[in-house]
């Protein structure tokens, strides 16, 4: 493994390099990337190994080692360039921005040759012919064409070709997933009726599963190509030549047969003629805000709904937890304490996965919205319980003593004396959590909820206007959080009783 310092030094150097490239026109630098790769003796290729079979994935027998047809292909390509290949892990739907930032020189990870992609980056001649495949449960009838999908919940991978195809069918309840393992889980859990995805993925994940079937024939064929920065013309030329040689000398066929993804379509790779690339037109979402802002606002509605309901749950559940922890009998007290510690000590992401994908295995099936509220709410409940505990313990012991001495019961003492005084102490941290909830709620996109950040990501993917959309999205988040702060300020002032 590389040392971290070496890695960051390389990253900084490349980042500066990319900055220079970005200040076009400087074509003299462009030819240097290939030289750089050769002098460094390493071709860095970006890919996502998470759920990446059969492209790039950890070997089930030796999980520390990556395998897949693209791993073999990267090595073959690097060998043609006379260098070694190094894979750089990167989330799939962020591969293009990472390439532009200079995290690696090429993308080699099932990147489709589409007009959208070719406007943004340079793409090599194709190294694989893919098609789309519909997968359903064994006992599902029909749904052999995407045109049959109206009104049905359908799963696709985030920013995949399938997403773009199914989005166009009216009335489809589109569910967007970060990884393909989750799509098949939800398909088997009856949460969705079909999954549309690239054939190689279907071959690896769905074909061996007796509960699933391929529905209809593969359709909408297309090409995977290697992505490179537009300025790296010499690298692209070298890659094109390497791919062509690998196609003609049978190396591609050997690799693809090894992973079971070879079919007769791949014959087309040998004689591919590239079409003309349309010139990249830049989109300003800020100038076109009437078109984009409503889409973002619709996502914001989901964010607000989620945050309000999850916070309501957290505020109530947190109170129950803290009361049990402080006043119940011993075994219940330990349980409440354990709850707080376990929830605080484990990532929210894992908790959401367990609730959404884990609970169906024991027969509890929640839809994404309720799973999101439950996950966020129960997570924040632990934090609220701790806030309350700090508040309750900030009330001087003389206060409950005075109440008990007046003959009040334990519960009356809490209700009339302790909790009202704790409330004032508790408001600032709870408001803080509420504001954090607006932002944390973006994590629920991993269980297919489309909220504000997810809408931003989807729009940014298709327009590449990260800055314009980012400003609008940040503005919406701020417009949500700031009133919450103001409200808390007012509430806090209203509850002040130490005025003179």
């Amino acid at each position: 493994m590389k040392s971290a310092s070496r890695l960051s030094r390389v990253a900084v150097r490349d980042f500066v390099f990319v900055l220079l490239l970005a200040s076009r026109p400087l074509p003299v630098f462009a030819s240097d990337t290939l030289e750089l790769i050769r002098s460094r003796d390493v071709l860095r290729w970006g890919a996502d190994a998470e759920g990446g079979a059969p492209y790039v994935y950890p070997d089930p027998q030796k999980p520390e080692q990556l395998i897949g047809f693209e791993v073999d292909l990267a090595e073959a390509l690097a060998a043609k360039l006379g260098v070694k290949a190094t894979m750089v892990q990167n989330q799939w739907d962020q591969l293009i921005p990472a390439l532009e930032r200079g995290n690696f020189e090429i993308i080699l990870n099932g990147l489709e040759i589409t007009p959208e992609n070719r406007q943004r980056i340079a793409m090599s001649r194709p190294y694989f012919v893919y098609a789309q495949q519909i997968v359903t449960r064994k006992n599902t009838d029909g749904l052999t064409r995407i045109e049959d999908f109206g009104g049905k919940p359908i799963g696709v991978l985030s920013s995949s070709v399938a997403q773009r195809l199914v989005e166009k069918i009216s009335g489809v309840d589109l569910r967007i997933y970060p990884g393909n393992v989750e799509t098949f889980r939800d398909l088997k859990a009856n949460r969705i009726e079909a999954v549309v995805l690239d054939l190689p993925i279907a071959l690896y994940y769905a074909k061996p599963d007796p509960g699933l079937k391929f529905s209809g024939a593969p359709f909408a064929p297309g090409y995977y190509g290697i992505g490179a920065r537009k300025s790296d013309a010499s690298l692209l030329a070298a890659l094109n030549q390497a791919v062509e040689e690998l196609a003609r000398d049978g190396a591609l066929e050997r690799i693809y047969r090894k992973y079971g993804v070879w079919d007769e379509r791949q014959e087309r790779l040998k004689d591919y003629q590239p079409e003309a690339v349309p010139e990249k037109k830049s989109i300003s979402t800020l100038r076109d805000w009437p078109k984009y802002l409503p889409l973002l606002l619709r996502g914001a509605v989901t964010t607000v709904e989620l945050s309000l309901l999850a916070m309501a749950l957290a505020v109530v559940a947190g109170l129950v937890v803290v009361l049990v922890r402080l006043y119940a009998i011993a075994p219940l007290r330990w349980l409440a304490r354990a709850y707080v510690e376990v929830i605080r000590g484990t990532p929210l992401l894992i908790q959401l996965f367990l609730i959404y994908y884990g609970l169906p295995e024991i027969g509890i099936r929640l839809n994404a919205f309720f799973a999101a509220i439950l996950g966020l709410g129960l997570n924040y409940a632990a934090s609220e319980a701790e806030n309350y505990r700090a508040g309750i313990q900030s009330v001087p012991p003389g206060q409950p003593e005075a109440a008990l001495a007046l003959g009040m019961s334990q519960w009356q003492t809490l209700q009339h004396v302790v909790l009202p005084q704790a409330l004032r102490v508790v408001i600032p941290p709870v408001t803080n959590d509420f504001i954090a909830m607006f932002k944390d709620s973006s994590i629920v996109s991993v269980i297919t909820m489309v909220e504000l950040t997810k809408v931003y990501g989807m729009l940014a993917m298709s327009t590449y206007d990260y800055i314009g959309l980012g400003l609008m999205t940040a503005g919406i988040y701020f417009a949500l959080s700031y009133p919450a702060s103001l409200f808390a300020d007012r509430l806090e002032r209203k509850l002040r009783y130490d005025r003179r």
Partner: protein
Amino acid sequence: MIAVEKLVKSYNSTPVLRGIDHAQNRSEAVVLIGPSGCGKSTFLRCLNQLEIADSGRITIDGVTIEGGRIPRSSEERERQRQLRRRSGMVFQSFNLFPHFTVLQNITVAPRFVKGVPTPEADARARQLLAKVGLENKADAYPAQLSGGQQQRVAIARALAMEPQVMLFDEPTSALDPELREEVLRVMRQLAEEGLTMIVVTHEMQFARDIADRILFFDDGLVVESGPPDRIFSNPQHERTREFLSKVATR
């Protein structure tokens, strides 16, 4: 009306009360004196169940609680509340509820513990405020009052539950000297009206004025007791003499 038998209490195996016996009649005013840490406050706190005695027995107005066990069953808890309702406690640090107005401080217990309707509770509270000289402070918050005023409200709050006996735990110790007199005046008046009370205090002149009986506490025991004249002018025990000479020269 009050009977305490062999009351024992330790904190972490340090004995604080080592077998207190005490009997008190209705309308009797008893003042506890003694050096700091001798167990006077703990005695009061045991009487109204803020501390649970290790052993012994407390009876107030026919309600008896045995020491040695924390009340768990609902019957035991009810008995504990009955005992508490028979005694009113006034604390050194007032312990008014800062989030309530003066009036609410006084009415909260009658309303929620006894179920007195709010208008009645309010009217009674205003009478009590008049008695302690604060009728115009009903809507003030505790933080807006001086220490002496707060302590007078605390007395009214305890009286509102109509206890059989009032327990005063160093009620003037946290006050500046010029504020003490207004609290002592109220307590004198209560004693004259024949309220049963037990007062822990370091105000010797006050003790002499109001007490029917003085109890001298030392090291967890009642060393000496008797009418104030005898205790102050002719103490029988060496330790009493020693203590009184120290307070006198202070």
